[in-house]
């Protein structure tokens, strides 16, 4: 029984096909995440600067950075002098 349980996702594959858009979305997320990680490097970034570099809207950039923050891949390091934007950094 225990043995079988390990494999339930395989069994499920027989009856359930993963929709293409789900796979595409995952690819997209991972590629953007990779780009963000590369761009950010060791430096602190705020959302507008990062978005400009990514050539993506600030709204979307925020979504990705916040998700990465939630999953512990990014940390908040501080806030700029104008108290306008927070800085984020890749967590090493």
């Amino acid at each position, binding site marked *: 029984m225990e043995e079988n349980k390990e494999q*339930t996702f395989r069994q499920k594959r027989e009856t*359930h096909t993963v929709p293409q858009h789900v796979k595409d979305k995952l690819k997209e997320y991972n590629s953007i995440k990779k780009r963000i990680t590369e761009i950010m490097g060791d430096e602190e970034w705020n959302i507008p600067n990062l978005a400009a570099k990514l050539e993506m809207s*600030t709204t979307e950039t925020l979504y990705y950075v916040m998700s990465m923050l939630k999953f512990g891949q990014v940390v908040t390091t501080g806030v700029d002098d104008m108290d306008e934007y*927070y800085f984020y950094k890749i967590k090493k």
Partner: protein
Amino acid sequence: MPSIQKLNFDAVVVGGGIAGVESALNIANSGYKVLLVEKDLTIGGKMILLSKVFPTLDCAACITTPKISEVARHPNVTIFTQTEVKAIHKQDNHYFKAEIVKHARFIDESNCTGCQLCEEACPVVVPDQYQYGMVGRKAAYIPFNIASPRIAAIDIENCILCGACEKACPTQCIDFMQHDEEYQIITRSVVVATGFNLFDPVKIPRFSSETAQNVITSMQMERLLAPTRPYNHVIRPSDGRIPDKIAYVLCTGSRDLSVGNPICSQICCMYSIKQAQLLMGSLPMADVTIYYINIRSFGKGFEEFYEQAKGMGVNFVKGKVGKITEKSNGNLTLRYEDIKTGKLKEADHDLVILSVGVLSNDDPQQFFAENEWKKDKFNFALQKDLFFKPSLSNIEGVFLAGTTSGPMDIPDTILSAGAASMETIRYIKQSTVEI
């Protein structure tokens, strides 16, 4: 196809929000067996998602969690989450037959420890519905930290069946072979605590909520302020900037015949004042302006709370906002008449919160179809005998708890749930039917 399972209860409580939880607890405490049915992954309803509650500023979680954990442990209460009520039929001899479907969670509920290792392992990220899409979540996930039950669930719609979670799970509780389970419940009584829906501001295009990122609803702001918040700070969704001119637009979708909801939602003034106070606390430099028609701070301690907000420097402007226009930098121009002076004004803000109103939830209409669930003219459940027995519905043996019968705040909801459970217990006690 697995066979339909049959269970008997004294009461079925539909809806696991605060009203349902309170009702279930009261009934169970009187020695009756209760089934609490919740369609979401967690009980706690809307209240558990809130930041703090007026007028005491207790954190919402501090109030909900003790009740929730009490109900979760109660020997007389069975909780079904992720479960839909398909139909409830009244039987001739004074009991109800309820058809319910418990959707597969793909997790063995009794073995999950909530360790979140599956969540860590899962590679899929999709917008988090509990955070109004402001941040992502995994396909294997726990809704939020204080969810009850605090166990994982697999979002099969977005799962790529990679098996990472199954490999990561230390208790082998992930089971992709789970199916939806059908139940037939025999019960003597039903408590409807299905709660309310929030007004969708997309129905008012002149508020630009669909196009302007920085026009958000009050529920989104609750999330931004809550301990289980999507961002770690209060920042605006368009670009992560810390807002410093914040506006509240009261009566969005309430007291408004032009959107078909003529009644007052009873809570928006107060939750907006509360949020304003919290914002003043977390963003001391920010200006918060509340645009209102009438401030309805009518409950115990509410007026004092309103005065307190004024004292803290929250700016109250009498006048309903007519139009919100987005500017290129994401800031917003609000057009309103300042009633005090009678002049049309325009004001710029960098974050606008639409204090959306309370609408009825029409779910009961679906599952009570054949018994003719009756509604009042505002689409809320009909209270058959308003003064004598406010929690009576038009169907004998079916009782109304909380916002099913109209907008109310949390204290009123709890009192209403208390009344509903009292009537339910009385009804069960008097019914002599053997089931």
